[in-house]
């Protein structure tokens, strides 16, 4: 036991590990909040689609980054990759939401199209303009987040933390609106709530969360971070508030546990967190069954 603490103590003497834990927990917190809404609105797939867009955006940002380093060294230090990635992903989210409503190409097809398109172009870009000698390694870590959480710079962590806090604050302020729009959009609109505005807000927040979560678990595993805690909580709890609180608590616990385990066992951070989430889902599912039986 003391060995474990010694190992952890050693790791936590490095600032980047502390950053990783702080950013990871905050990202997990905000990604779980909207999970309930996304699951219930049948928007789970939008999260998945957007994560691929974010991958493509990151590729573009990396290439631009290299270009900046080469041609505009004075710009490079001021702008990191994240703002650009967030911008592109938010734009895609708005586009997807709009096409989902009333066009010839239906929602799921539009998502599929944009997401695989972004994935393909992203990979292509990274190959045409390699940013390092190890393109496969770069791609793998973007997709699965194998090491990226530990390589965040201090400014990345500050940006992540600020955005995560902003998401939480917005969620709390608009909690009742988000509930109403999720439960019954037609009723909300009929009684004068601008549901389109709130849908847009949900889409934008989702995009921001996905870019943040990409740092933590990589773009392929983001959906797990958004969906698992919400689904687990929904097995057991019966009010929207309890489900939301439980899924937030669960997500934070799983992220913290996943990061610690990955440090001790030298496993990839992202997949360890998702594995903990999946395990938790299994237990909640059992608990839900037992509770249903008893009632």
């Amino acid at each position, binding site marked *: 036991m003391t060995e474990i603490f010694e190992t952890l103590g050693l790791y936590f003497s490095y600032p980047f590990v502390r950053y990783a834990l702080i950013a990871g927990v905050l990202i997990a917190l905000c990604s779980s909040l909207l999970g*309930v809404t996304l699951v*219930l*609105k*049948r928007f789970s797939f939008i999260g998945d689609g957007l994560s691929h867009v974010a991958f493509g955006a990151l590729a573009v940002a990396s290439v631009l980054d290299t270009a900046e380093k080469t041609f505009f060294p004075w710009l490079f230090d001021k702008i990191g990759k994240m703002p650009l990635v967030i911008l592109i992903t938010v734009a895609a989210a708005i586009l997807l939401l709009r096409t989902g409503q009333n066009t010839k190409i239906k929602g799921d097809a539009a998502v599929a199209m944009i997401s695989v398109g972004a994935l393909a172009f992203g990979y292509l870009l990274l190959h045409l303009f390699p940013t390092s000698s190890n393109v496969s390694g770069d791609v793998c870590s973007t997709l699965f987040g194998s090491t990226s959480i530990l390589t965040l710079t201090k400014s990345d962590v500050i940006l992540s933390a600020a955005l995560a806090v902003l998401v939480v604050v917005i969620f*709390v*302020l*608009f*909690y*009742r*609106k988000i*509930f*109403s729009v*999720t*439960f*019954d959009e*037609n*009723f*909300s*609109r*009929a*009684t*004068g*709530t601008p549901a389109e505005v709130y849908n847009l807000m949900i889409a934008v927040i989702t995009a921001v969360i996905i870019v943040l979560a990409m740092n933590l678990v990589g773009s392929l595993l983001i959906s797990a971070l958004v969906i698992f805690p919400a689904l687990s909580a*929904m097995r057991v*709890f*019966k*009010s*929207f*508030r*309890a*489900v939301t609180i439980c899924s937030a608590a669960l997500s934070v616990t799983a992220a913290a546990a996943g990061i610690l385990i990955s440090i001790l066992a030298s496993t990839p951070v992202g997949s360890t967190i998702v594995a903990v989430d999946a395990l938790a889902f299994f237990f909640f599912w059992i608990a839900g069954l037992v509770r249903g039986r008893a009632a």
Partner: protein
Amino acid sequence: MAYLTISNLSLGYEGREILKDVSFQVNKGDYLCIVGENGSGKSTLMKTVLGLQSPLGGVIRAGDGLRRREIGYLPQQTEVQRDFPATAWEVVTSGLLNRQGLRPFLTKEEKKIARDAMETLGIAELEKKCYRELSGGQQQRVLLARALCAAGRLLLLDEPVAGLDPAATKEMYELVDKLHRSGITVIMITHDLSAALTYATHVLHVGEDVFFGTVEEYRKSGRLGGFGEEGEK
């Protein structure tokens, strides 16, 4: 002036017309039943009146000081709601949003409005129960309470008795009747002609040709066909 004046309204989806030349008026204190075949456009008509979709032609005018935030709506239940984790209280209070504006919490008065609505509909004791575990009749009453929270003056009900057993159906009709007697104007879509003839003051029959008039006029118009005055469906 009437609460709602609808003149020469035509409506449909994506340019395809499903109803045309609908004209009717709803005055304060009316109880209007909208009847017609399945797929004749009753729900679409209601959504158009509510502004959820735009009409293909014609005019919808609100009058008599009726404002958007005084209209309550009971939509048909959606698939999403059947497994939605929410308590009855959470659902009912979501009807208060249009009073709340941007304020994130409820005031004491607003909570009282919600409690009174639940009291009126006899579901006060269901407050902490999970919505998806309620019976069909209880769910409809929760949704009706939500509509009441939103509505001071006008209620639009889209098939409030769909899927209810006969006892719950009767209770639902009596509740709506009670609300109407207390001074709320009601527009209700129903399949059930006998209910329309028992409780309503006006009938709007949509379909190939549109009829609008009082229940008396409807009886005399000969549209009841084989159903007779005590027809069941």
